[in-house]
């Protein structure tokens, strides 16, 4: 399948067959959780609770949820500055995530990392990288560990369309391919790198063709369809666990908000956003849940209500968190004792 738009594209699979009823509820909950989380981060920015910058992923939730749900607890993940999605999908503590973004000592990294650097080693959330492409080599390294340890772990890394033009992408794809490592490369093709449309920086729209430069299987999937994403990822993960090496998954999706806080998105052609809003991953999934009778309107509303409350409560608790104490941070810098 290398270099071709895969069989996964366009194939409509039933939710029940891929997720089951319980899985479907979980997926819906996770989608909502990420959406609510990101909305709350945005509001917190406006309210002055967050300073600096932040990169949100509304519209791309199905990629995070669909890919993460294909993983085992002992798998490894690396992601980007736009990485709240995978973290929340993986189960990162919401208060800890908010508190980190608010710069509080109760943050997952004690406020030292920030919005661009949410991590949690317990969950295999190895790192969020603010330098484009930098997370890929690290995921490859986790893939080496996984392969060496020999218990079927995999490593997964997320990155954008724009990131496929940086050297680290190329070197990582090649290394994973030549060593047949269990690494899943998840490309969130949201059509833009910052304010640049993909065709202004890349001589093609379908990035999956790049996989063939490494003799690596590549698949394209509708990134706004959580079921399709999960389905495609499961196949890739199965291959990786079986020792058959890496896969490149291109998820076609769209960033509903600006690149970062200061971006109003003026570069978008008229109508583009509207068209994608109609394909909002949460709305799509919600409609299918109803259509397939897996959840009724009351059930959906209850879930929505619960998630919203959970997110609001976590943010409220996080906002109460104390500021980190101003003290020497040598111990946060080095693990070993220093002679100095």
């Amino acid at each position, binding site marked *: 399948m290398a270099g071709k738009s895969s069989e996964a594209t366009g194939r409509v699979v039933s939710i029940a067959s891929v997720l089951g009823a319980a899985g479907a509820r979980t997926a819906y909950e996770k989608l909502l959780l990420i959406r609510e989380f990101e909305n709350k981060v945005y509001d917190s920015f406006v309210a002055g609770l967050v300073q*600096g910058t932040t990169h949100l992923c509304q519209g791309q939730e199905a990629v995070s949820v669909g890919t993460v749900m294909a993983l085992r607890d002992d798998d490894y993940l690396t992601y980007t500055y736009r990485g709240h999605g995978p973290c929340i999908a993986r189960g990162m503590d919401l208060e800890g995530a908010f508190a980190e973004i608010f710069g509080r000592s109760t943050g997952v990294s004690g406020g030292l990392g920030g919005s661009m650097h949410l991590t949690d080693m317990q969950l295999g959330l190895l790192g969020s990288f603010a330098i484009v492409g930098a997370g890929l080599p690290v995921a490859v390294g986790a893939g080496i560990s996984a392969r060496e340890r020999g218990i079927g772990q995999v490593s997964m890394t997320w990155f954008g369309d724009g990131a496929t033009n940086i050297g680290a992408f190329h070197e990582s794809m090649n290394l994973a391919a030549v060593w047949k490592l269990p690494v899943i490369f998840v490309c969130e093709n949201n059509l833009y790198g910052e304010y640049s449309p993909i065709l202004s920086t890349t001589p093609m729209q379908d990035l999956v063709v790049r996989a063939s430069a490494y003799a690596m299987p590549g698949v394209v999937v509708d990134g706004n369809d959580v079921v399709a994403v999960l389905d495609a990822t499961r196949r890739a993960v199965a291959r990786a666990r079986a020792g058959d090496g890496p896969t490149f998954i291109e998820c076609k999706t769209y960033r509903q908000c600006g690149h970062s806080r200061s971006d109003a998105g003026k570069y978008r052609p008229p109508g583009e956003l509207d068209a994608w809003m109609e394909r909002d991953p949460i709305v799509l999934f919600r409609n299918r849940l109803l259509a397939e009778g897996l959840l009724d309107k009351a059930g959906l509303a209850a879930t929505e209500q619960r998630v919203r409350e959970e997110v609001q409560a976590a943010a409220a608790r996080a906002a109460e968190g104390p500021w980190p104490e*101003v003290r020497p941070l040598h111990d946060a810098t080095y693990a070993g004792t220093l002679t100095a």
Partner: protein
Amino acid sequence: MSTITYREAIVRAQREALAADPRVILMGEDIGAAGGPFKTTEGLFEEFGPLRVRDTPISENAFVGAAMGMALTGYRPVIELMFADFMGVCFDQIVNSIAKHRFMCGGKVAVPVTIRAMGGGGVRFGAQHSQTGETWVYQFPGLKVFCPASPADAYLMLRQAIDDPDPVIVLEHKAMMAMKGEIQTDAGRWPAQRPQVVRPGRDVTLVASLAMVRRAMAAADALAAQGIQAEVIDLRVLRPLVAEPIIDSVTRTGALVVVEENHESGGWGAEIVARALTAAFDYIDKPPVRVTLPDWPMPYSPALEDAAVPSVQKIVDAVLAQH
């Protein structure tokens, strides 16, 4: 003379260079229609078009290296690297190619490349987006390193950089973008490419660069109120480093305090201290002091970031402790 912001000064310098010389070409991520992530190319795309103001892919190593290829073949590329921290992904081209190419060619070529990068802390961008980059590059012969600490310098240094036959790295500071000041458009009145006394004083020499200059100035105000007259020197050009103005100053004041937004070990402050103390050994009567970032990466939390970046109070305290 006209009063504009640091950011506007950068735009203006580029506009004038583009207008004056068809060989000037700007390249960088989102510098075109978007006007640059820091809006430092605002309006230039509209005025000069997509070939003179080029949006690049996220391929720093390629477009920085390409700048050298352009320079070797008759053009004068001006690169915007966005965050100075991104020099990491194109470090090889900067320090192994651009810095050394003329030399390896026996001095037979010139490499007129300008690289602009925005650095520095204070804006809650965390450890990978807050480095000034000063100490990354000033050690390399073949490069020139300019550090504008005012709109005037943001303007004139960029114009000088673009005109320079050698590669120049212009390290702008993102916390100064909105700073207002006068610029001098008459090149005949531009100061020499060397440190400059920006406030005279007789008791202690404060040497600072970039965003630390303002703080040193504010500290000097505070110190004056306590009877200590600090002379403030804006370092301005990190390479080639001209130590005379500093040596001259410490010879008069007898005391040196450097203020920089880099870690102590490896900071340029050591270089200043070493040069000053070596050259003015007999004139300095107080141990020098360095006010720097602490020895850990930049923390994200506002509380911790503010404690990390040298503050006016810390500078004042350092001088008082010395005296």
